[in-house]
């Protein structure tokens, strides 16, 4: 492994950590709302959150590129803010990844919230807990397995994404060249030994992540 490979690894971990933290922040209120609401919008919002599951990354990447470019709404907004354009920058990658990995974080948390049911929340209310207090002292602890699954899946999915980071990132060393893009680069340049090292590492990493997920299986924890 040379320094380019190590830089790409570091960049990938940095990207996945930031994206996971942001997704827990953004995803939790969305998941809570989706789990509790009676609104007619529930179906539409749920469908939008799930879109990245079914859309090819190239579609999402292309639209994000258009949106973030100088003629797109997001691009105009960031230029108006004075922070310039997002494509081909690390913050641009972060935003694209947040979109792409959103369902992987929202859905497990939403399922966990739904599994709690009405009763513990009603009990908390009769004990005069405020909704805010109920959320933090009752809902979040009970939904912990969902948070764990969401965080692990969001992290792993961000590490594994490829099509979008290539499209939004522009393959710039130390800035947007993450491991998945570097592997592709090695393969295309016929540098198969380097590709093997990194690919093998990805396989082991993915296995360990999934092993952790299934070992801390939410269902089993709740029984115990």
């Amino acid at each position, binding site marked *: 492994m040379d320094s380019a490979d190590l830089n790409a690894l570091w960049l990938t971990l940095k990207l996945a950590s930031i994206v996971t933290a942001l997704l827990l922040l953004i995803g939790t209120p969305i998941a809570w709302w989706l789990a509790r609401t009676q609104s007619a919008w529930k179906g539409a919002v749920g469908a939008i959150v799930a879109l990245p599951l079914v859309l090819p990354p190239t579609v999402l990447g292309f639209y994000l590129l258009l949106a973030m470019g100088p003629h797109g709404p997001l691009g105009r907004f960031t230029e108006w803010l004075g922070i310039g354009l997002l494509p*081909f920058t690390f913050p641009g990658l972060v935003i694209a990844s947040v979109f792409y990995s959103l369902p992987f974080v929202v859905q497990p948390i939403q399922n966990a919230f739904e599994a709690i049911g009405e009763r513990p929340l009603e009990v908390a209310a009769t004990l005069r807990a405020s909704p805010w207090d109920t959320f933090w002292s009752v809902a979040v602890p009970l939904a912990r397995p969902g948070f764990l699954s969401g965080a692990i899946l969001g992290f792993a999915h961000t590490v594994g994404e490829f099509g979008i980071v290539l499209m939004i990132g522009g*393959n710039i060393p130390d800035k947007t060249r993450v491991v998945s893009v570097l592997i592709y680069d090695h393969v295309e340049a016929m540098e198969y030994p380097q590709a093997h090292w990194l690919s093998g590492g990805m396989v082991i990493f993915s296995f360990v992540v999934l092993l952790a997920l299934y070992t801390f299986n939410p269902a089993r924890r709740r029984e115990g």
Partner: protein
Amino acid sequence: MKRLGYLLLALFALPSADAGEVQVAVAANFTGPMQVLATLFERDSGHQLKLSYGATGKFYAQIKNGAPFEVLLAADDQTPARLLAEGSGVAGSNFIYAIGKLVLWSSDPQRVDGSGEILKKDGFRHVAIANPKTAPYGRAAIETMSKMGVAERLAPRLVQGENIAQTHQFIATGAAELGFVAYSQVIKNGRIGAGSGWLIPPHFYSPIRQEALLLARGKNNAAASELLAYLKSAKAQAVIESFGYALP
């Protein structure tokens, strides 16, 4: 089982049948001309072409691992040479079907001047190129910038497309203000269509010789050989030239 039978039948029938089928791997920069050529060839010969477009390096990996391509239209001459040396091509079948031309292009009609002076100035954030490690047009772009003495200055602004098609996308969407693409991608009626561009004189970069190769899998497919012969015909060459390529 029945389906397998049909498949075998088709495989045996192919070489001798009148209406054959050819699986062709086509370099991304040749997408436009190939669509025209395929229509003409299919009409004239009655054969069917199955076309895949992509990066030449990717095709190499796929061919080495059993992809069913019978003809390769590469973006360079090194990949065909390598396939030949490794026994994946038919000896003597390779030839230059087109010589690529490089342009500096922007989707903004005002941006690029007729001699590339813009590269020595400021006022843009990103220059898009194809990955120079894998794409000959990316390599030519680097050579051009070196020759102009701006390579080091521009290095921090370079963004790379996976292949020349993605590079074009970066520029067309305006995400990158300008960049190096194939002339064939922006040509319209013999000149640069939309935006602004500089057709880079050939002495700025080593020639992009694009070679065609009959692959080992297509050895006994008469339609594959016919396609290669067709690419050398005057009719096909006129089409290739009209898309902004030179001929050997």
